[in-house]
């Protein structure tokens, strides 16, 4: 809502309160002022000039030389390029020394050899909002009505000496969508008198024309009033009205439309004017639409109705969609002489639903949706009729016809003083409370510490006790509410164990070189499809019902695809190496059409590509490989205290068939690690890319189930034996390790792989693999013979199971 300071000043005396101070008061009172905008934008020294003559420019086809009386004694010679300039016009003239918006200075100058002593201005050049102006004003100079006085300050004439306060209203304060509502609010904030015009009902001279109103959808339209005005002469509305409409951001059109809009701004009550002669029988029937019914609205679009669409009909055909838009068939045109003016209450839900369904939002529908004040329906109609008489030469042609079903509810709310003090935490004086209600103009009775407050219908946001507490608080001043900390039972604050675990993961990965990324949960199904789902193979991506774009269509089921996209983004920006991780939720559903919320699981994914460390003066840049990333993961598991992790080669789609493994914990697949298939990587402009992804739920279960227990330090020495084996190349290392562990018995303390190689003397299809085995007993020093016995058993087992031989 844009509020004209000058207009408001007619209702509340703003003497001594500057627009900025008013804005501060409103903001502190809960009506946030987003912008204080002087309408002049710096315009100075622009006056009304009378164009005496227009001659062609001797040296330029498009320019004209005008003689203008601008009340400066002598006539001015002004060169003008506007096509619409003509002798006899009253126009805005920027004199020498004038200022225009944007800091433009006007000086006497020569244009193609002809002296110009000023400038004839267009509306845009004076800072008026061009898009709200009629086309002829956008193209040429602004032309005033002939009654404008020569030499008069054009700024004043155009209302540019006004200041606009732009309000950012919260949905509960729809009462401030009108000048009346703001006047009440400002009156309360400043504790000043509110003076509002109270036009009386206008009655026709004779019998007048008839209007019949039938309310056939009483829940959505319980109150409808109409009056007929004839003898209308369509034309522009007066400058003062146009100025106020422009200040409010409303486009001036003609006197009839402008009056309905003006009254809407003034009272908050949207009105509609029908061409009376196009309303058959002068009958108004308000009813719901039927399936298949259509209405062609003012904008020429034919719109389908449903049984919830509230229609205004003339008994035979729909003539408007109630509260949303009028019909073309009853539109006011150049030929219109008689109007039927509508002022009604349409239920917020109905207007909201229809406006939303049709995608039609207007100043009118916005107000109906938030609930108009039923007490203002008749006054607004009186006011509109009064203005039609004054400004459109209208004559009242009917009495007001009004139909109302039910009564307007009177709302009385009780406020306990003790509750007020308890909720605010401050000892508010009782006198101060009654004073606040007086300022708000809420009639109040006080009895035994309880205020009984009559809430006017203009404030539908107030219905229960806390609503009144808020009213008192905001006028009392939120700043006067003291600061204390919650007392009473103390509570220990904490993160949950899972939250602490996630922090450890985040910080560990950060410490070993990974940057944390945060991606959108919404992505495209194609992005997800590029890589096979290994961890949650049954998951179906959850689809948004009305996505905003193809890129944000489904909820992700894996974090990896987006990490690839970020890697691509960064490599394109000349990053040499990219190491990233993300910890976030994936959304897992198995059903195609959701009947319940999908499962949300915390996942962790990492990616590394390019270089790990940059080139250094002591060594070349390090590049990642499968084992560097696996090492990172192992450090993470070590940091978390997770043991018993196994890796098994797999060949999922989108991954390198020889360099990918699923990660298992107690035979449960908890993750994946591997190289992205070179072809997939290439689509992202990447070369070797390695990723991992882990389901954090089983990891958390494993970590949080374990309690750390100290093991006594060994008292007896350990004996280490190396074991260099030659085995077939396709035997995985963990198979050997498992066999060693299985055979090594209770003395085998640790097994460390320290060498792997192929080729040379080893022979084709074979590999050499060497382990260091440490034996140790808890209770005594092992003898060489004892260790040798076990060690030989290990060797024998390896020979038997996998055909291993000792390397010679």
């Amino acid at each position, binding site marked *: 809502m844009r509020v004209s300071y000058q207009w408001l000043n007619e209702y509340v005396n703003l003497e001594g309160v500057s627009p900025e101070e008013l804005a501060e008061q409103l903001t502190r009172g809960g009506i946030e002022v987003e912008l204080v905008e002087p309408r002049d934008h710096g315009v100075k020294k622009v006056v009304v000039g009378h164009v005496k003559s227009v001659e062609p420019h001797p040296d330029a086809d498009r320019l004209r030389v005008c003689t203008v009386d601008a009340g400066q004694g002598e006539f001015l010679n002004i060169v003008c390029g506007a096509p619409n300039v003509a002798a006899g016009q009253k126009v805005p003239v920027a004199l020498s020394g004038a200022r225009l918006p944007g800091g433009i200075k006007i000086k006497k100058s020569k244009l193609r050899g002809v002296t110009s002593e000023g400038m004839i201005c267009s509306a845009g050049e004076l800072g008026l909002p061009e898009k709200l102006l009629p086309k002829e004003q956008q193209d040429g100079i602004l032309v005033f009505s002939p009654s404008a006085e020569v030499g008069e300050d054009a700024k004043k004439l155009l209302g540019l000496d006004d200041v606009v306060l732009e309000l950012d209203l919260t*949905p509960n304060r729809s009462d401030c969508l009108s000048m009346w509502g703001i006047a009440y609010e400002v009156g309360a904030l400043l504790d000043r008198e509110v003076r509002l015009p109270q036009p009386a009902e206008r009655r026709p001279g004779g019998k007048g024309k008839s209007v019949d109103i039938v309310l056939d959808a009483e829940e959505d339209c319980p109150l409808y009033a109409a009056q007929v005005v004839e003898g209308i002469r369509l034309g522009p509305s007066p400058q003062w009205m146009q100025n106020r409409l422009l200040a409010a951001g409303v486009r001036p059109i003609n006197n009839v439309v402008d009056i309905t809009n003006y009254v809407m701004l003034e009272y908050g009550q949207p009105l509609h004017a029908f061409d009376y002669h196009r309303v058959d029988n002068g009958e108004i029937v308000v009813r719901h639409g039927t399936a298949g019914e259509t209405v062609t609205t003012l904008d020429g679009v034919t719109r389908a109705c449903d049984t919830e669409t509230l229609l205004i009909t003339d008994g035979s055909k729909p003539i408007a969609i109630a509260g949303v838009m009028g019909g073309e068939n009853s539109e006011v045109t150049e030929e219109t002489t008689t109007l039927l003016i509508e002022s009604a209450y349409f239920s917020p839900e109905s207007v909201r639903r229809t406006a939303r369904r049709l995608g039609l939002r207007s100043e009118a529908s916005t107000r109906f949706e938030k609930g108009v004040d039923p007490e203002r329906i008749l006054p607004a109609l009186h006011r509109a009729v009064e203005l039609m008489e004054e400004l459109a030469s209208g004559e009242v042609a009917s009495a007001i016809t009004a139909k109302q079903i039910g009564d307007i509810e009177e709302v009385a709310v009780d406020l306990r003083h003790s509750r007020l003090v308890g909720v605010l935490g401050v000892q508010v004086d009782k006198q101060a409370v009654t004073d606040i209600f007086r300022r708000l103009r809420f009639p109040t009775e006080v009895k035994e510490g309880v205020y009984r407050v009559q809430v006017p219908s203009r404030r539908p946001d107030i219905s229960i006790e806390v609503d009144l507490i808020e009213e008192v608080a905001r006028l009392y001043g939120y700043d006067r509410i003291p*600061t204390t900390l919650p007392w009473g039972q103390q509570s220990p604050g904490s993160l949950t164990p899972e939250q602490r675990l996630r922090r450890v993961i985040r910080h560990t990965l950060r410490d070993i070189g990974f940057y944390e990324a945060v991606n959108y949960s919404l992505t495209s199904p194609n992005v997800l499809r590029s890589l096979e789902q290994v961890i949650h193979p049954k998951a179906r991506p959850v689809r948004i019902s009305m996505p905003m774009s193809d890129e944000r269509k489904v909820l992700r089921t894996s974090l990896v695809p987006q990490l690839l996209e970020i890697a691509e983004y960064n490599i394109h920006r000349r990053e040499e190496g990219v190491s990233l991780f993300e910890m976030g939720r994936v959304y897992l559903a198995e059903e195609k059409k959701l009947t319940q919320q999908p499962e949300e699981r915390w996942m962790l994914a990492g990616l590394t590509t390019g270089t790990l460390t940059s080139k250094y003066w002591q060594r070349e840049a390090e590049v990642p490989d499968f084992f560097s990333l696996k090492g990172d993961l192992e450090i993470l598991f070590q940091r978390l205290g997770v043991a018993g992790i196994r890796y098994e080669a797999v060949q999922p789609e989108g991954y390198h068939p020889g360099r990918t493994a699923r990660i298992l914990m107690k035979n449960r697949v908890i993750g994946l690690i591997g190289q992205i298939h070179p072809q997939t990587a290439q689509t992202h402009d990447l070369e070797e890319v390695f990723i991992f992804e882990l389901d954090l739920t089983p990891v958390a279960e494993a970590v949080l189930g374990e309690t750390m227990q100290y093991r006594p330090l060994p008292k007896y020495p350990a004996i280490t034996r190396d074991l260099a084996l030659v085995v077939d190349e396709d035997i995985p290392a963990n198979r050997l390790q498992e066999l060693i562990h299985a055979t090594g018995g209770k003395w085998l303390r640790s097994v460390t792989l320290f060498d792997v190689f192929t080729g040379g003397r080893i022979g084709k299809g074979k590999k050499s693999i060497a382990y260091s085995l440490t034996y140790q007993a808890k209770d005594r020093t092992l003898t060489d013979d004892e260790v040798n016995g076990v060690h030989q058993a290990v060797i024998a087992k390896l020979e038997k199971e996998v055909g291993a031989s000792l390397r010679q």
Partner: protein
Amino acid sequence: MTGSTPGVSVSGSSLLSCPPNPFWGSKGYRIKTVIFFRVEQFLQPTAGIAQPRVVPRISRPSDAGFFYFYGNREGIQVREQLESMKKEAEVEIRSASGPDALKELRVKYLGKKGKITSVLRGMKDLPPAERPVIGGLANEIRALLEAWIGDKEQELDQERLKTRLESEMIDVTLPGKPKPLGGVHPLNAVIERIEDIFVGMGFEVAEGPEVETDYYNFEALNLPKDHPARDMQDSFYITPEILLRTQTSPVQVRSMEARGGKVPVKVICPGKVYRRDDDDATHSHQFTQVEGLVVDRGIAMSELHGTLLSFAEQMFGRKLESRLRPSYFPFTEPSVEMDISCVQCGGKGCRMCKQTGWIEILGAGMVHPRVLERGGYDSERYTGFAFGMGPERIALLKYGIDDIRHFYTNDLRFLRQFQSL
């Protein structure tokens, strides 16, 4: 350990003759002192090497008359022989060019076939009375030479070390070896900070689903269908009843239900939320929020004010000013918004605060009675407050970031700037 004679610790001498100074320093008394010390050690062979420190170094009688012999000519000759050998050895040891030369000198004087041994061998020709005296002198000189050689060895070691250290000189201004270090995402860094502040004030950290039901996201929060406030947050629906949560507020009712009517309820809930907004510098279809909720007996707005102020001071620093403004949220009444003095200009007015000197950091209010009832709390007995803030906004303000999209682009040039958070 340099060579030593039984009962005599040569290394002990270095404790007395301050190592950096050669023992033949310009003041001759050091030699005498050493001699004296050695004799004493020799005469009292049981004196342990641990004791040299207690032996006074100076204020000892001069050597005049100490080595006074009444002897025959042979005795005198041997003595002179020993003295001149001592002088010769001193010069040679002094000028030894390296460890090898020193080794040769040791053999030459102290070896099995060395000069001292040969002198001692000639002792049988001396009268018996003189033998112990000369023997003593010879051993005395042997100890002295041992000490000199030892000291010379140390000196040579020092020189060698010095040369080596000189050759090992590096340019200490060259860059250090790079170790990979990543960074926590600034949004999560801010969320962790917010969590820590509230945990310090006794809050638990709760979580809730991001794919939420219409009931928890709206209905339970006093936002029935067709409520105009639903316009404030256009939503991503999946089905008519399931949507991506538009706020973390659904965790309010979920937390109350989880507490089952017990008090106090003191939780915050950080998390992702989603709204149908086109992404631009100030809008994002996905962003984060941190919700807070306190329910107990007798919770007043003053406690909301105190809690928020304490948070703001911990987050932005002690010197800020704050103000509360009335606002509107369907699930709180009264509702407030909190402004703090602009963190970029300190309140003077700048682009960030739109010249007002104030910036809004959060919305809050007293929990609406209907929301308390939905959560299973009697709104007559209990009151509460709730608040919600945006980590993006806090990060934008705190670090002067100009575009919300940076948080979701994951440009390493951006992320790298927050490594120290």
